[in-house]
């Protein structure tokens, strides 16, 4: 056990020096069955090559920082166990479909803009004052949107999405799911304001039922369902009299 090693091939790219990304190999000791891909990257950075760059923080699958391609599949590296790969080498690359800033670090500005575009906050015709207390909402009403509220913005779904890969204008899985999260919230009255952004934006009609986004989601969110439901919302808006769907 003590002598077990595993080889990691990691993407290296520094725009100051490199024309294109390349893979670099490292041998990493695999000394504990609990080790994850992120531990291997941290070993490299600490003891072999301090210049390897990647994002990480919570190492418990909730901050959403450490998403990367692991052997071609989008994964949170804090929850990708080496024991599931050993003795095969592990190839770690930046998430697909995003520009690379450096090594394993992607540029996710596009998502940050899309997140804001869907107006991910409670919209009401009239705010109730704080003194009136909380909106009444049952746990069953929360169940209506619960799964969509679990999104950690890790970008794995965008890396898996064939439509986003071809058309960067596509709002994409996570932002659509988050829009849906608010549209389904009993406290919210913003559906009509959000629909033009969510449903009439480019790409949604190209989305097929492939559902790769839902397969790779580490939090059990089903963005594919959000997208299909949004299409239905839009269709109903044409069928039903104006204003009868709030």
């Amino acid at each position: 056990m003590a002598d077990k090693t595993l080889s990691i091939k990691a993407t290296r790219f520094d725009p100051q020096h490199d024309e294109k990304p390349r893979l670099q190999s490292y041998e990493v000791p695999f000394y504990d069955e609990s080790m994850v891909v992120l531990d291997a990257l941290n070993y490299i950075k600490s003891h072999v090559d301090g210049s390897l760059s990647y994002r990480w923080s919570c190492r418990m699958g909730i901050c959403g920082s450490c998403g990367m391609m692991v052997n071609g599949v989008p994964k949170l590296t804090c929850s990708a166990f080496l024991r599931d790969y050993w003795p095969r080498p592990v190839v770690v690359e930046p998430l697909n479909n995003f520009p690379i800033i450096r090594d394993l670090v992607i540029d996710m500005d596009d998502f940050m803009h899309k997140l804001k575009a869907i107006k991910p906050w409670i919209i009401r015709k009239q705010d109730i004052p704080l003194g009136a207390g909380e909106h009444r909402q049952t746990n069953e009403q929360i169940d209506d949107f619960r799964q969509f509220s679990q999104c950690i913005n890790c970008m794995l779904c965008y890396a898996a999405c064939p439509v986003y890969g071809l058309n960067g204008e596509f709002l994409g899985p996570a932002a659509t799911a988050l829009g849906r999260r608010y549209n389904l919230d009993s406290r919210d009255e913003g559906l009509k304001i959000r629909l033009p952004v969510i449903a009439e934006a480019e790409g949604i009609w190209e989305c097929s039922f492939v559902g790769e986004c839902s397969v790779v989601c580490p939090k059990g969110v089903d963005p594919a369902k959000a997208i299909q439901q949004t299409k239905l919302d839009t269709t109903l808006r044409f069928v039903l009299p104006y204003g009868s769907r709030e």
Partner: protein
Amino acid sequence: MDFESYDVLVVGGGLAGIRAAIAAVEANPRARVGMVSKVYPMRSHTVSAEGGAAAVMASNDSYETHAFDTIKGSDYLADQDVVEAFVREAPVEVIQMEHWGCPWSRNPDGTIAVRPFGGMTTWRTCFAADKTGFHMLHAVFQTSLKYEQIIRHDEAFVTKLLIEDSRCVGVVALDIRTGRFDAITAKSVILATGGLGRVYAFTTNGNICTGDGMALAYRAGVGLKDMEMVQFHPTGLPFTGILITEAVRGEGGYLFNNQGERFLKRYVPNKMELGPRDIISRAMITEFEAGRGFEGPHGKYMHLDVRHLGEDVIDRKLPFMRELGREFMGIDIVHDPIPVRPVQHYMMGGVDSDISGATPVLGLYAAGECANVGLNGGNRLGSNSLSECLVFGAAAGRAAAYYASSAKPVTANPVDAMLWDEARRVETEYLEKKTGTERIAVIREEMQKEMDTGAGVFRDRDGLSRLARNLGGLRDRFERIKIDDSSRTFNTEVLAALELDFMLEVSTAIAFSALAREESRGAHARRDFPERDDAKFLKHTLAFRTNALAPRLEYRDVKITNFQPQARSY
């Protein structure tokens, strides 16, 4: 080099920072508010908080009992006027979060539900299943996107506070993506940078919790208050240190030693699993030392058992715990006990600041874990910290906006010179350093081991003196660090070096503050001084940076209003 100017600049994008930014805008809609964070705000460590946020919500609860529980929990080191203000504001803030979309778990009638928590005499912890911090952070961050006045500088690391004529006028920040240094000036600055758990090896805290704001303030001459008061949470997973929420015990989970005993009957017989964190962590270590812990590949541990709660309760109230057990331990908590042991979790100490977040430096405020407003004293009660981020984040935001509305504008000339000096310092000491031999990670790992050994659950004079001395040795070696990465683009090695510099600063403040407090109070348990000594130490420690290794220590009386100190038993 750029020059941005704000009315209010918030450093940190977690719950306290974002709450402060929104409060500043709502206090003065014409204010320009900047927010600089070394990570995208939704990555902030608030995201890992699990159990809940305390507030008086139930009809059988009262402000007075929440205040008393908090003060007794603090081992009487909390400032009582601050606690009394806090308990009144907390329910208002919980409602505000509800209006902003936080999916609080509900009672059958649709009102916000509460659960029991450690050290609280009644049910008052509001929760969103067991991902409360995650939901609060995403709700408040997403809500902040609707305020056009809030301008974010994501992934920028503050290396220095700009101080001119004893007034804080902004920060120097390193833009991580480009390697560029910017002076971001502001009439007022709010530090909301979170905790410092990464000075320890075994911690629940994420990689980003490196005490940045505390070190920034310390270097600007502000005292760090009660730095000896470090919280160890009783239930972390062995190896990773991942937090298992106190809500597991709140919902009825038991702690067992290797004899199958609920051993807490010997320590907190009236509270059992709902005792305060400091006492339960000490009880676990005491049991380990008596040979009553389980032995595993990653050290001694106890069993935290929820099997009797049943799958339905677990899936409704503790779904994330089941997920964490499956993912990281390969167990199903419905059928298996959870191995746990005490783990560094929270810093009661922090930047000396008052009830509105104001520090002694004009224009500088602090809120959340990086601040010590006097709420938590010697031991924070679980679920008071999320509420603290809301209450004191909002207070600091309002106070900073109010101050900024009448403060003089910041002048460019001295700022330019300060920016130039700071950029040169970081470039010479880090980016262009070619001659060093010491690896950052080696120094960091040694610091973390020293802190675990010398400033853990139990301390004594010998261990703390050795710790202080060894931290001095590590500081000397830090001068000779070697940096592999010379790139300007997303250079996380220079970032790690800057963070280590800050961590050495705050860990030294911890060691010396702990050495000088010759009593046991709250989380500070001295084997050589096992009793609380109110005659000498009913006081806050204030550590001021000097040019030597040791800080200068001063003491300030604790504010007592309605609750006279008494023996603390549960």
